[in-house]
């Protein structure tokens, strides 16, 4: 059974902005799925359409087989959502936020109180249960939203950029929590603009750019397709002329930083040899961190080659 099927989804906002241009997606039950794309690609728009905060212009959505046009409320009852922006009542206590949320999904108060304890503990906020949300830090608020999304025990958990603005340590513990939840069978979809996050958590991935899905595959296949990677070389001595290396794209980042683009079929040894031949001394080297950007470059390059 598919947890989510999106067919031919279009969205034009009332200001005429044409944001989704025929999106197709299928997420199998139990999957850990990433929707990856740069800012403004349309990720939040898709999520908001699934949770009914935004109306679609055209297309169809099914959640566990329930069509949104026919059984929206039934479909919505299976979803838990952690939105990109805080939408908690800042003057309500953490436990009341969860108890109320459970109530909106038909869970009686008695049961809601039990679950509130369970899920506040799972995000390590139990000791803050009687504090109002306003007094929590940003990372805590985000965890509170995760607990809120879990309290009615949805079959599909959707997180919109869950780790944006969250520090490294909390990000790790959040990742672990999400893995545990997925292990017990909950389908998870998250949006992100970090390839690293998708890579370390997810099995399958769709890449969206300008309202279109440009790739939809398993993470391992996608990473294989990451045909080129850039490396930054730090030089021991500054260099004022861009060195030329045959078959490699070389650029100067600064006087003592050189960037080299290396394709999967090329060999880093050649670069080192060439550097020593030209008397350039390397003190250290690192991979350029924004691999998503590189992924896009490789897609755009591939497209250009197709067009030619």
């Amino acid at each position, binding site marked *: 059974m598919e947890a989510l099927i999106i067919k031919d989804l279009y969205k034009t906002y009332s200001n005429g902005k044409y944001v989704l241009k025929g999106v197709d997606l299928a997420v199998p039950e139990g999957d850990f799925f990433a929707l990856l794309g740069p800012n403004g690609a349309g990720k939040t728009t898709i999520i908001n359409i699934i949770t009914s*905060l935004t109306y679609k212009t055209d297309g169809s959505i099914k959640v566990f087989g329930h069509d949104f046009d026919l059984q929206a*409320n039934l479909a919505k*009852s299976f979803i838990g959502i952690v939105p990109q922006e805080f*939408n908690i009542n800042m003057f309500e206590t953490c436990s009341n936020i969860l108890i109320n*949320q459970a109530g*909106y*999904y038909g869970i009686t108060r008695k049961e809601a109180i039990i679950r509130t304890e369970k899920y506040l503990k799972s995000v390590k906020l139990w000791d803050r249960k009687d504090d109002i949300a306003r007094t929590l830090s940003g990372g805590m608020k985000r965890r509170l939203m995760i607990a809120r999304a879990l309290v009615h025990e949805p079959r599909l958990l959707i997180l919109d950029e869950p780790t944006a603005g969250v520090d490294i340590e909390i990000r790790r513990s959040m990742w672990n929590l999400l893995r545990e939840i997925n292990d017990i069978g909950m389908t998870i979809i998250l949006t992100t603009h970090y390839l690293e996050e998708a890579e370390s958590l997810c099995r399958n991935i769709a890449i969206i750019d300008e309202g279109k899905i440009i790739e939809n595959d398993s993470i391992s296949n996608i990473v294989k397709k990451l045909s080129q990677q850039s490396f930054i070389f730090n030089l021991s001595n500054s260099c004022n002329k861009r060195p030329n290396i045959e078959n490699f794209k070389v650029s100067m980042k600064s006087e003592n930083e050189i960037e080299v683009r290396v394709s999967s079929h090329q060999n880093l040894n050649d670069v080192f040899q060439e550097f020593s031949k030209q008397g350039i001394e390397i003190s250290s080297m690192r991979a350029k961190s924004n691999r998503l950007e590189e992924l896009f470059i490789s897609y755009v390059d591939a497209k250009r080659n197709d067009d030619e």
Partner: protein
Amino acid sequence: MMNNIIKNMRINRLVRINLVGFYTIIRREIKRVVRIWIQTILPPAITMTLYFIIFGSLIGSRIGDMSGVPYTTFIAPGLIMMSIITNSFGNVVSSFFSGKLHRHLEEMLVSPMEITTIVFGFVSGGLFRGILVSLVVTIVALFFTELKITYPLITVSTIILTSVTFSLAGLLNAIFAKNFDEISIIPTFVLAPLTYLGGVFFSISLLSPFWQSVAQFNPILYMVNAFRYGMLGISDIPILKAYTIIILALVFLFSLVIFLLKRGTGVRN
């Protein structure tokens, strides 16, 4: 056969969601009214005490009778009604609008509850505050005048109908409001004038025939008079006509609010 069973299970699931959801919203709204009682319950008590002191005791004693009863007695039902109107309206407009502004209204919008359930929930909050305030103001009134309840059923039903109608009006205001200014415009420029001209302080028989017919367009006139009839047994308006108009206003506002929210006006893109 199997299909029918599955269908019934689904219906039960959705019925349960809406019942528990409704209870959850009411409980939350009532807690809100009680928690911020300094903003919700105290002000009408103070304002009404002032009205009774100034218009009732100080000025009222010089006015003498109106419609055959002492002036203080005459204005008491009107003042109770006025508090119900402003408080029911104010409760829903501020609760719904702050949910919209701080986005926690989204919790309910993404949930599987029906729009109607959400509307009933907010309106019940307004009704709770309306009834609570009417009790408080009635107690205040009893310090200044004697009150009787001639027709209990009419008295209670007008309180409920009026409170629900203005809770819906508050919701309508909150749906369209984009900032705090826009939730104070309607109470100041529409609600207050209509209330003051709605026969709270005078019998419309005092007006010239022309202004009497203009006053007929003011829905608050019917509420105040129906309520005064329930308490004192006097009214400027035939009671059946008053009920008809109040119920029409209620049904119109309810349908409009449901229509707008289903369309997503003010809450969805």
